[in-house]
């Protein structure tokens, strides 16, 4: 009945098709990221009122929380693609998994630094070994471990397999990060925004947060597309389709 979906996926997973697909979508993803980013920043920094407890310091939330969500979201994508790559040996899944790692590490780093900058005025400390902060730091080390392991191998596909294993094992940390504020007594506050049930935040503050969430999602898509395209070029450098691209494209 609906076998066009697996067929389409199969076709999409061929490197030249994906290269073209990513090239078409990338400018749109980047444009949407910028549009939502500008709207979200204007809403968050200018329109949203100050918090009744935290004053203007809470405005860090508009980057801290979307980046924290991305750090977990990208890890999940990386884990699933690494699993697909290990089981079905799909080259594209390997590329997606390995190229997601640096973007995820970047978002995790931003989460930790902005959290620290928020913690100092509110808690009186830059860092504390509470469950949320520690598990997020472990997430950063997992990303760095995946990147390092991938690069430690001479053979790229072997490296991707080893790093993929580490990525899959590390998936266990994602629910730990998410539920740490419920499972342990943490200095870090609990969830403010809930998908199921009412959020504990006013609409004036919620919509810029959601706009920034969309902006970071689209940014990830754009960055992943560019990284995957580049990786496919070097992976398939002997193939005709890559040679045609190299011959036709001038240095930008």
């Amino acid at each position: 009945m609906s076998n066009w979906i697996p067929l389409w996926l199969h076709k999409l997973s061929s490197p030249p098709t994906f290269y073209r697909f990513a090239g078409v979508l990338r400018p749109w993803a980047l444009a949407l990221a910028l549009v939502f980013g500008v709207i979200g920043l204007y809403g968050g920094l200018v329109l949203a009122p100050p918090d009744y407890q935290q004053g203007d310091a809470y405005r860090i939330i508009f980057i801290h929380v979307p980046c924290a969500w991305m750090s977990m979201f990208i890890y999940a994508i990386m884990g699933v693609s690494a699993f697909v790559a290990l089981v079905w040996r799909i080259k594209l899944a390997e590329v997606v998994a390995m190229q997601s790692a640096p973007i995820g590490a970047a978002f995790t780093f931003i989460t930790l630094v902005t959290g620290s900058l928020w913690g100092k005025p509110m808690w009186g400390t830059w860092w504390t070994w509470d469950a949320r902060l520690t598990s997020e730091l472990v997430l950063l080390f997992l990303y760095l471990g995946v990147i390092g392991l991938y690069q430690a191998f001479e053979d790229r596909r072997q490296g991707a397999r080893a790093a993929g294993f580490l990525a899959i094992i590390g998936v266990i940390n994602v629910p730990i990060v998410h539920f740490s504020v419920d499972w342990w007594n943490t200095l870090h506050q609990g969830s403010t925004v809930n998908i199921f049930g009412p959020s504990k935040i006013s609409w004036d503050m919620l919509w810029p947060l959601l706009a920034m969430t969309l902006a970071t999602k689209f940014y990830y898509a754009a960055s992943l597309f560019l990284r995957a395209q580049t990786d496919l070029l070097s992976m398939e450098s002997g193939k005709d389709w890559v040679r045609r691209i190299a011959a036709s494209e001038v240095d930008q």
Partner: protein
Amino acid sequence: MNALQVFFAMGGYARYVWPAYAVFFIVLIADSIAPRLRRRRELRQLRARMARQEARSAGCILPTPSST
């Protein structure tokens, strides 16, 4: 204080809020520049290799490039 000064003062939290936003932008800009540089390098290497192969098939010997 005018409105702009009030905005930049961030209710006294300017030295926490603005560095946080700076880190956000610096890291993401670095993240978008890195693959562009790599892409340019890959294409340059590939073109150099293609030129060598073409030269070899044409029957002349090129000096090996000092850095590829």
